[in-house]
């Protein structure tokens, strides 16, 4: 009996050991077999996958922290063909909820999956979360019905959305729609991996906003799981724009374009002391949420932002620069007399006043007040071409201002010795004809007059927010074309000239300096007969300029004159601007300063 149990004990032990050894042997055999490497390779493809993490694109704020460009959640819808068992229900649901074509979806999802074919098929892109919520509730309802059916042991195939996948992601969103869109630009998010910013801030600071994408290896095997490296979002930008001033400028500009019948318009509001652009209202405007309508809104060669991308002959607003140069060079004084006979010969070509009249004895204030071409052409000849063009160069005319927006244009001016420059050019250039500049060049140059002779770099970037810290963008002086004395003298001359002509640009309670401009438009066969560009540049308060406003209306229909159409636009802008900037009237401000 004892021997029998001993035998059984060793028999079972031996059998189990043999089975163990057999398993061990087969494990080694499988590991050393030629197919083992193939299996290992197949297995390794399921261990990890490479993933490029695109950082969240940085936000864009106005100077008070109002969001101008952000991101919202959106979804991509696709199917994993391996798991699709009910293509009809998928096609019908997507047609009903998302609005996709039933047949297209059905054809895409009903193909039996082959291992040679991609298992994922994209069906729709950029779907709103609300629609995804609807799909989610439909899927849950179908799953409930299936569970109930299986609990009742029914063998029928129940409708289901198996294989349907929605993947979340972020897309660019502009909460203010068209507001400031010419400054902000747009981000072409539909291009996915190759998306980038176009125009404005989105283009200029694309790299900064985009951040740095990181490629990571994500383990599917939970034993090999590691923390995915944190990818910091792109830098956010705070602009110098003031949302309320921008909205006000756009509203008033649109109203005046409509009332004057102008083709387009520009209003630029700048702080002359810092070069910060507070508003840049331009037409036409695009809703960057629908950037694909670009070619509809900007047909042909229309610039995205005319304030920086379109050069034009500015007309008499240019006289501010001519007079600044002459005063600074000591060629004339405000009281310098000039007898206007209504015509002056420059280079053998007669130059006449805007009204073809003779204004008799004038001083320099009178010349500016009545915008006398003859007088300014005389001033330019007294200055001489060399000094005149040197001053224009110092004012930055003919050069890019370097404003931090994508799409800036510039047109160099002709100087003596250039092919196409004639002596008469000196005369016509003095009053802004035969020379072209962008509104941003004009306001930057003239801001030197409003800022004690110092010309500040025009800019829209106030600060960069990166890695949780805010870095400010300090103002920069880009030139000192005239002395502080010249700037103050000219400011007073232009304030007086506005007051004496009872200009439509005058603002109750605030002393402002400014100049109108009416320019003929060059065409293929010379200047056009019945079309003008109306402009106005003005700044204030004269004793401590806090703003400079440049206005341009292209081809107004109700009146060709800047004094009639552009000056009232300036007035209305400034009346609202002083309220939004908390600028009390001069008398109140001076009284406060005295306390």
């Amino acid at each position: 009996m004892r021997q029998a149990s001993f035998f059984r004990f060793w028999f079972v032990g031996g059998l189990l050991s043999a089975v163990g050894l057999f398993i061990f042997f087969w494990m080694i055999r499988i590991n050393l077999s030629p197919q083992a490497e193939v299996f290992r390779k197949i297995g390794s493809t399921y261990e990890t996958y490479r993933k490029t993490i695109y950082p969240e694109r940085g936000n864009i704020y106005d100077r008070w922290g109002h969001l101008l460009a952000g991101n919202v959640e959106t979804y991509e819808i696709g199917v994993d063909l391996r798991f699709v068992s009910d293509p009809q229900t998928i096609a019908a649901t997507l047609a009903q909820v998302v609005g996709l074509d039933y047949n297209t979806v059905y054809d895409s999802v009903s193909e039996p999956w082959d291992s040679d074919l991609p298992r994922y098929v994209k069906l729709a892109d950029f779907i709103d979360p609300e629609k995804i919520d609807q799909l989610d509730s439909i899927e849950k309802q179908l799953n409930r019905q299936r569970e109930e059916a299986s609990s009742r042991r029914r063998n029928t195939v129940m409708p289901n959305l198996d294989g349907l996948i929605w993947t979340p992601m972020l897309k660019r969103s502009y909460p203010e729609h068209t507001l400031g869109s010419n400054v902000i630009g747009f981000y072409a998010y539909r291009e996915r991996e190759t998306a980038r910013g176009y125009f404005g801030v989105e283009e200029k600071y694309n790299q900064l906003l985009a951040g740095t994408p990181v490629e990571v290896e994500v383990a599917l095997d939970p034993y090999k799981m590691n923390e995915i490296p944190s990818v910091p979002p792109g830098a956010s930008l705070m602009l110098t724009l003031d949302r309320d001033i921008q909205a006000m400028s756009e509203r008033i500009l649109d109203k005046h374009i409509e009332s004057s019948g102008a083709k387009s318009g520009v209003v630029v509001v700048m702080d002359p002391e810092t070069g910060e652009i507070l508003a840049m209202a331009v037409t036409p405007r695009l809703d960057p949420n629908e950037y694909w309508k670009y070619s509809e809104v900007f047909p042909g060669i229309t610039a995205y932002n005319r304030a920086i991308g379109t050069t034009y002959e500015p007309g008499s607003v240019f006289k501010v620069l001519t007079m600044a140069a002459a005063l600074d060079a000591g060629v004339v004084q405000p009281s310098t007399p000039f007898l206007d006979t209504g015509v002056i010969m420059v280079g053998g070509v007669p130059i006449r006043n805007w009204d073809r009249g003779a204004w008799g004895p004038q001083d320099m204030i009178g010349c500016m007040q009545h915008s006398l071409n003859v007088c300014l052409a005389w001033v330019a000849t007294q200055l001489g071409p060399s000094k005149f063009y040197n001053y224009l160069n110092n004012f930055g005319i003919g050069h890019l201002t370097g404003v931090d927006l994508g799409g800036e244009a510039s047109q160099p001016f002709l100087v003596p010795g250039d092919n196409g420059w004639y002596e008469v050019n000196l005369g016509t250039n003095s009053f802004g004809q035969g020379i072209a500049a962008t509104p941003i060049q004009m306001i930057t140059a003239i801001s030197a007059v409003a800022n004690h002779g110092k010309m500040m770099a025009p800019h829209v970037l106030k600060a960069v927010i990166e890695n949780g810290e805010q870095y400010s963008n300090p103002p920069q002086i880009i030139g000192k074309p005239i002395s502080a004395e010249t700037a103050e003298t000219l400011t007073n001359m232009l304030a007086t000239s506005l007051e004496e002509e009872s200009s439509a640009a005058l603002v109750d309670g605030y002393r402002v300096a400014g100049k109108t401009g009416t320019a003929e438009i060059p065409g293929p066969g010379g200047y056009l007969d019945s079309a003008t560009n109306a402009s106005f540049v003005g700044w204030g308060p004269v004793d401590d300029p806090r703003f400079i406003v440049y206005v341009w209306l292209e081809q107004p229909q109700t009146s060709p004159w800047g004094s009639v159409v552009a000056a009232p636009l300036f007035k209305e802008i400034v009346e609202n601007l002083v309220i939004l900037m908390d600028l009390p009237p001069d008398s109140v401000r001076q009284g406060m300063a005295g306390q």
Partner: protein
Amino acid sequence: MTIRNPIHQAYRQAPWRRATQVGVLFLILALLTASILWVMLTVTVQAASAGLEIQSLENEKEKLVREIASLRTNIAIQTSAEAMLERARNLGFRQANPDEITYVVIPGYTGKQPQIIAPPPSPPSQRVLIKPSYTQSLSEWLFQGIIRMSEQTGGFTQ
């Protein structure tokens, strides 16, 4: 009946005792193996759960980033210039005329200040806020302590 090798016979274990010893030894080995397997399994399961939790937290983090971005933008949409103007109009407000505005001097008020979304960069000296003793390992602390002591006492060299 002869008794061969009586001494050997005297120290030989009883067969049942030997069987018990073998059985106990086998049980000990089996228990040891089971314990090792149990520890390995527990650690493996914990590692797997931690891995899955990391994955789940990564997904949660991504979801929260998207939600925050969406909420921020939705707030901006609700408070956009156009929407606020519309709401103000609906509430019966209108834009003030310049002659309706009264300016009052408020001592100490410097006017509306630009928005600060994030703090400015701090100087480098203020960046290290955590003492090294909170971040260095025991061996680092010991090693640096020895170096410091050696510097104070003139070093190891004679």
